[in-house]
């Protein structure tokens, strides 16, 4: 009933016992730390409303803030590029790298970079790419795509990481502890940081009134990615705009607490233009690539609220489906609830329509989202479109049609349900149905309680003949 590709990815994920353990370890910690951080923040609800309002204000005035940002960034010495599509964005980045004669680039983790397929584009252009975020380094060694937007290597257990480092690092040492593993990665990456010609980063905020780009990390790798190389390229989605630094800080508070439960990131850096005369370091050329890639279409197609997303990952950490199947099963750049909304935008609904359907609409994602995105409503919106476009399988359409025929006709519905009860009870043994035609989805892994002998309505009629 589901798209085979999705079903196959789900089966693979569910068959992997390490995966569930790895997911629970990381998301469990994230959930409890976030809960503690929110509990310790009496004004959380007000901050959340402010965050939502800031983002909605920017979305409603996007053209104004984009042009303001471009003007101020240009005045600070940056070169601003506009990319309508992923392909355009990659072409611009590769073009800059080639013009700079770059043989190798360092990259600080950026989900936008993944979204536009930048790793592939660099590889195709023959440019060596060094991922500097520890988790990105791990998955680069493993050849995996990210499985979480904050912890891309969430799916790897500590033991699997040690094995990877042993196989790939020049000087891995004993790797007996996490600290030793980090030290090995540091030895490996430091020399690459210094050798790179171009550093590529994303942006957490684009600050319109100063033209600065704000990045936040906990490892300091963004700073080492963007400072030593001659050229720094920022790729950022246009929804990252904020009016001012103060607005960025309001959102940062929400972002960090929701992502990790910390109060602030270890490193919060504002990149404003290239190296100026007298600066000790910094790139000599600073490029900012502003990427649309479907975002203005989201505005037009009823998904404006999704442009609030801070990429904090809280909705993933709290999603019961994500906790079972992990990120790769979603098959897109972005997993979890936010991914189930975004992937149909990026990859088209036909072929991804399982994502908005594989959800119980339990609402926990919306409850924890720091900018109050109504994720279940947006997912239901995709379902409506999928229904309208006839993407739902025939068996779903057929059963809903038959059901519709009856529920809209109470006078027929009553005898029909009475008959259905009689039939179902034929399959019951001591109150339970263990197998029944058409009920395999239910009965394969759980029993079905037998329905009542008589419907409530029929019993009521006997007890209250006037009713």
């Amino acid at each position, binding site marked *: *009933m*589901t798209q085979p590709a999705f079903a196959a990815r*789900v*089966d693979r994920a*569910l068959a992997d016992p390490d995966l569930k353990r790895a997911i629970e370890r990381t998301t469990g910690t994230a959930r409890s730390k976030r809960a503690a951080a929110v509990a310790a923040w009496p004004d959380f609800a007000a901050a959340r409303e402010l965050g939502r309002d800031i983002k909605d204000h920017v979305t409603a005035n996007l053209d104004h803030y984009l042009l303001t940002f471009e003007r101020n960034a240009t005045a600070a010495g940056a070169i601003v590029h506009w990319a309508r599509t992923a392909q355009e964005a990659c072409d611009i980045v590769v073009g800059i790298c080639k013009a700079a004669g770059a043989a190798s680039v360092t990259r600080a983790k950026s989900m936008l970079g993944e979204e536009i397929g930048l790793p592939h584009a660099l590889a195709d252009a023959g440019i060596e790419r060094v991922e500097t975020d520890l988790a990105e380094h791990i998955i680069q060694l493993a050849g995996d795509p990210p499985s979480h937007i904050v912890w891309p290597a969430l799916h790897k257990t500590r033991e699997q990481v040690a094995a990877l480092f042993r196989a790939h690092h020049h000087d891995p040492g004993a790797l007996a502890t996490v600290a030793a593993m980090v030290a090995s990665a540091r030895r490996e990456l430091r020399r690459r940081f210094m050798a790179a010609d171009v550093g590529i980063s994303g942006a957490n905020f684009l600050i319109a009134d100063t033209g600065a780009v704000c990045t936040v990390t906990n490892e300091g790798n963004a700073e080492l990615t963007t400072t030593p190389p001659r050229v720094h390229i920022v790729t950022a989605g246009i929804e990252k705009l904020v009016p001012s630094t103060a607005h960025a800080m309001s959102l940062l508070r929400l972002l960090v607490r929701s992502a990790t439960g910390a109060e602030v990131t270890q490193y919060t850096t504002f990149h404003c233009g290239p190296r100026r005369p007298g600066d000790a370091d910094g790139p000599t050329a600073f490029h900012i690539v502003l990427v649309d890639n479907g975002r203005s279409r989201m505005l037009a197609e009823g998904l404006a609220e999704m442009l609030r997303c801070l990429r904090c990952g809280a909705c993933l950490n709290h999603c*019961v*489906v994500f906790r*079972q*199947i992990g990120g790769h099963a979603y098959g897109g750049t972005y997993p979890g609830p936010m991914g189930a909304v975004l992937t149909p935008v990026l990859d088209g609904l036909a072929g991804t329509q399982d994502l908005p*359907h*594989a*959800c*119980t*609409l*339990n*609402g*926990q994602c*919306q*409850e924890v989202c720091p900018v109050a995105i109504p994720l279940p409503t947006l997912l*239901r919106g995709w*379902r*409506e*479109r*999928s*229904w*309208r476009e006839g993407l*739902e399988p025939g068996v*779903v359409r057929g059963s*809903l049609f038959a*059901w*519709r025929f009856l*529920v*809209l006709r*109470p006078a027929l*519905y009553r005898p029909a*349900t009475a008959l*259905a009860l009689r039939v179902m009870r034929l399959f019951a043994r*001591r*109150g*339970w149905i263990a197998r029944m035609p058409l*009920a*395999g*989805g*239910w009965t*394969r*892994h*759980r*029993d*079905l*309680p037998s*329905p*009542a*002998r*008589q*419907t*409530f*309505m029929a*019993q*009521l009629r006997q007890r209250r003949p006037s*009713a």
Partner: protein
Amino acid sequence: MSAPQARPRVGLFVTCLVDLYRPTVGFAAIRLLEQAGCQVEVPRAQTCCGQPAYNTGDRATSRDLARGILDAFGGFDYVVVPSGSCGGMLREHLPHLFDDDPNLKARAAALAARSYELVAFLVDVRGVSVVDAAYAGTVTYHDSCAGLRELGVKDQPRRLLGSVAGLRLAEMAEPETCCGFGGTFCVKYPAISTRMVADKTRDIAASGADTLLAGDLGCLLNMAGRLKREASPVRSRHVAEVLAGMTDQVPPIGEARERG
């Protein structure tokens, strides 16, 4: 809270699952509502709140059903539903089905504002704080998602359960985590749903309770069915049966001798 209205006319929205699976819940709701001073009627023109269509994206069918609900329930002081998810459908979603029709939208909004989940209605509207019931056992209460997040049903059932003689409440880990039912989700994505409900039954077992309670029959059928497949001794009941003191009239969900 303003003083409860003397004897309001309440339309009971039975829900299709209670109608088919667990009529006792309907009778328990009637008893509780009458004890709370309400005059209860059950319109015969009701079938389903429309969630199967609404959550599959079939807006047209959910609108057609909603129009019938407006006709059948428009005249009552209150509409009460022994289910958080069907209650949420009436209270939170019905008006949005008519965003393009101001007339129907106003009627739907008026109905939504008068629609309540059963236990929340008893506590929040009727000011009920104790029930006349006894239950010898340790129960654990699962917070069904829509009741919890759309309607704020959380303390009300616990408060009333606290007044049931002999009953002890043992909270499970993560009582607010979805059980994996999700309406059509559980049959469309059975593999994922099964893992979810298995995590839930693990938490239920670890609570040490002998009885699982919840306010939504869909979730209960899912969890009870999984408990049964795991041969767990934990029994499952709708919270209304316990609050109405009707547990001696009907065995737990799925147990034989269902007289209802």
